[in-house]
């Protein structure tokens, strides 16, 4: 029998996998834990399992983590515009 490790990975299914809806429902909580350096996977193993297997949800996780880790700051133009408008 050959080494079909990628096939194994592709066909691997974890009964603990919570699915897309549940993973996306608490994605913000999970991401804040990861960003704070806490063990989010231990706290939410079913979400961690799902993110390992679901490409689209994993992409959403990466996107949210990127935004939280390096928040999009207001450009100089935005700041000036707000000041000119008298916003707080």
């Amino acid at each position, binding site marked *: 029998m050959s080494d079909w490790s*990628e096939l194994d990975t592709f066909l691997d299914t974890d009964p603990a996998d919570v699915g897309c809806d549940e993973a996306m429902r608490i994605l913000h909580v999970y991401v*804040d834990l990861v960003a704070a350096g806490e063990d989010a996977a231990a706290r939410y193993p079913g979400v961690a399992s799902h993110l390992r297997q679901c490409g689209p949800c994993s992409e959403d996780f990466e996107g949210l983590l990127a*935004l939280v880790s390096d928040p999009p700051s207001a450009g100089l133009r935005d700041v000036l515009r707000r000041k000119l408008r008298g916003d707080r």
Partner: protein
Amino acid sequence: MAGATSEGGLDPESARWVERLSGSGRSRESCVRELHELLLRAARREVRRRSGTTPVGGRELDDVATQAANDATYAVLAKVGQFRGESRFTTWAYRFVVLEVSHKLGRHFWRQPRADLADEDWARLPDVLGAPPDHVVEVRELTRAVRRAVDDLTEVQRRVFEGAVLQGIPLDALAVRHDTTRNALYKALFDARRKIRAHLVANGYLGHEETEEVQGS
């Protein structure tokens, strides 16, 4: 954890957002503008991050960002009363942006479908399975075995497997085509993968130790 917890109440910054958005008058209007600007910057950042993996580009990508920011702002305003401080407010708000960008790019897939999109393409399977190139005979046998397993799937499972695996269509785009949700398609694909594995194990293509966690569906 950085940010707030539901037990300890909101962190100061999150509390400020919630208070101003739940208020009225000029303070709220100003806060809504601030929120929209924040979410627009987030949406632009997110579409840029995904620009290498989507056929959408140029001005259309900026339109996606604008629409995602608008819809995310409406969602946040509609649901701010449900925010319980389980995360920072901005993380919670960014989540709406990310999900909107995902969904909208899925819809745009069909406006510019890839030229190489065939009905189904079993030739893709060896690549998907990570088949070693020097195992031609085994790969051919394995492909036949997978085809037999796929024949035994339900119609929905087969459709999702063919679309997502053989055609390489993103799950969000498939969800748009079949007027369903990513979650529903993922569950169908999950069951398809489990059945295919069981079939391959039963026929000696995969080791038996992995079957212990396989349960019939």
